[in-house]
């Protein structure tokens, strides 16, 4: 076993443990995570297996295939995160706005007239 393989496998295990400990997960998430981790470890131990898949898709090396799919995958993640951030921002805005409006009304009630 190469040292890079050991490092990568340790990396996957750390990420796995971190994820499990940090977020108490639903069963399905856990299942997905376990299968991805095992798949990852499998391909780290037998990298030449990725070449077989790559050849079938018309890509020279397994590593290249992995690289291409990573780009697509991360673009997808960025878009998802952006959309989520945007929705969060909208909610926050709405909250601050409602609060600001009711604060202003309270101010008016306290003074008993429509002035600061």
């Amino acid at each position, binding site marked *: 076993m190469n040292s890079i393989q050991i490092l990568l496998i340790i990396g996957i295990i750390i990420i796995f443990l971190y994820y499990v400990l940090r977020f108490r997960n639903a069963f399905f998430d856990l299942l997905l995570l376990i299968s991805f981790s095992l798949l990852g470890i499998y391909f780290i131990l037998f990298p030449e297996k990725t070449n077989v898949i790559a050849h079938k898709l018309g890509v020279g090396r397994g590593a290249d295939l992995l690289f291409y799919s990573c780009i697509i995958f991360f673009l997808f993640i960025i878009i998802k995160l952006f*959309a989520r951030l945007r929705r969060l921002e909208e909610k926050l805005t709405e909250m601050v706005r409602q609060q*600001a409006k009711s604060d202003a009304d309270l101010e*008016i009630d306290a003074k008993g007239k429509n002035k600061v």
Partner: protein
Amino acid sequence: MGFTFIPCMSVPNNTKNVFIIIPAFNENTVIKSVVEEISQFNYSIIVIDDGSEISLLPLLRNMPVDYIRHRINLGQGAAIQTGIEYALTKGAEYIVTFDADGQHDTIDIQKLLDPLQNNKADIVFGSRFIENSTQNMPKGRKFVLLLARLFNFFITGLFLSDAHNGLRAMNKKAASLIKIKENGMAHASEILVQVKNKKLRFVEVPVTIKYTTYSTKKGQTGWSSFRIFFDLLLNKLFK
């Protein structure tokens, strides 16, 4: 029993239902003079403090304004939307947005209101380019604004003579139809998009912009136009 006189209702050309909304973020040096200037007229004034580091409330004590404060800074677009919603609940017929940095001229407010009150338009944009009404505009600013106009034309199909002018007026109909979702500076373009989509009638009116040292410093740089561009682009793509 007796004679009741409700000044607001009985005077036909009353101005209390005209709401001036002033979004302000850390404008403590000028906000007072701006409000003072506007309060010479008989308009209703709403200051939206967009989470300024130091509350603007003490500066506005004993002044005839409604004060709304966002507890955190959201951006000018969000402040304007808050102001519009609040003004509508207070019975606004006409709403004017007015920058807090003192670069607008209060005389222009009535010029903007005329087309609305004569029912010629639903929304009126102030423009610094219709006539040579602008004082001391930096050259770089002029070029950036030209690019902004072209950009607005591409996304909205409306070619206005000015792209990002903070002075605009709208009637109740436009105010309730327009919903600003761009919290940042991209709201100016967003308003145009909505004017187009909601088929609102609009006109441009020449207004004066004073480029003081303060407003130039406080105002946007060319760099912010890139941010606006990306805000709009990203939000269009990933909505």
